[in-house]
């Protein structure tokens, strides 16, 4: 993706970015269907389910929250888990701040759109202009499709109450894999990725839902404070 930006014209690059953004939006929408359904099944009303998608707007946190509630946990425990899982967005936002340089009323709007997908699409582009477009286009596309799908999923909860039959529970990991793969071009991210997966899986049985992913963030911090090697390692 990023290599092509250097050689193709801006209209061609723009078309490519917008097409990718629409693709990510559609894919996330498919996953939003299952969120709407699972949230309804967990006992949240259609309105509560839609408010989560409109205002919280961060898939992992939303799934974690309704997962805790559906599993019999307290609503406030669900909220705490959602916030813990949302910590990663603060780090994504740090990354996006350098690319976006937004001020005034645009800042809270941009903040709301800082999620896994928009960040991954933006950092997959190396040039600033396509990178910014990728963030805004992907964020907007995901926001629209995620919320529409949430409403449809919540309303048709019974038809989709078991998204496993359609293999929809495999959609998110596959999407994350596709989004992350452009970043695995040197040895360091590979090592970090494998260590993060190991840390997360080992800790799953022992800590509350959501925390294993935060432990994995610790792997990035530990790797990041080590002396930075020259870019030539790529």
């Amino acid at each position: 993706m990023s290599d092509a930006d250097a050689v193709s014209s801006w209209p061609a690059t723009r078309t490519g970015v917008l097409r990718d953004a629409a693709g990510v939006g559609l894919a996330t929408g498919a996953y939003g269907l299952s969120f709407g359904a699972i949230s309804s099944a967990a006992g949240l009303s259609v309105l509560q389910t839609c408010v989560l998608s409109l205002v919280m707007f961060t898939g992992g946190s939303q799934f974690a929250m309704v997962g805790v509630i559906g599993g019999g946990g307290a609503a406030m425990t669900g909220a705490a888990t959602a916030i813990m899982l949302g910590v990663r967005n603060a780090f994504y936002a740090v990354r996006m701040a350098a690319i976006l340089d937004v001020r005034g009323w645009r800042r809270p709007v941009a903040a709301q759109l800082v999620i896994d997908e928009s960040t991954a699409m933006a950092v997959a582009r190396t040039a600033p202009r396509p990178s910014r477009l990728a963030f805004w286009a992907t964020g907007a596309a995901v926001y629209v499709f995620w919320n529409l799908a949430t409403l449809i999923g919540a309303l048709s909860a019974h038809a989709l109450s078991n998204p496993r039959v359609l293999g929809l529970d495999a959609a998110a990991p596959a999407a994350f894999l596709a989004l992350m793969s452009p970043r695995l071009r040197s040895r360091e991210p590979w090592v970090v990725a494998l260590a993060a997966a190991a840390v997360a899986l080992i800790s799953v049985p022992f800590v509350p839902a959501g925390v294993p992913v935060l432990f994995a963030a610790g792997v990035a911090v530990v790797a990041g404070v080590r002396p930075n090697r020259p870019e030539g390692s790529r």
Partner: protein
Amino acid sequence: MWLAIAVGCVGCFALKLVGLSLPRRVIEQPVVKHIAELLPVALLTALIATQTFTSGHRLQLDARAAGLVAAAIAVRFKAPFLVVVAVACLVTALVRLVA
């Protein structure tokens, strides 16, 4: 329930806004920049791992793993994003159907 939803929503938005509002000199520290570049890799991989290989608090190997392998193969052959996701869902559903 509404209070918990409000707390969760405010907390998640605040995290996004704080990250976006940190002073530039904090952001442009080499160590912070390096960490911020590695974080999405670590977090996305952890999400992949936990959403594929766990069920509640247990490790579990099931049809989702087949879906992830199929997705990895699709990524390896540079398949478009939607194809990667569709292949993962299809393989997972088929393995469940057969198993």
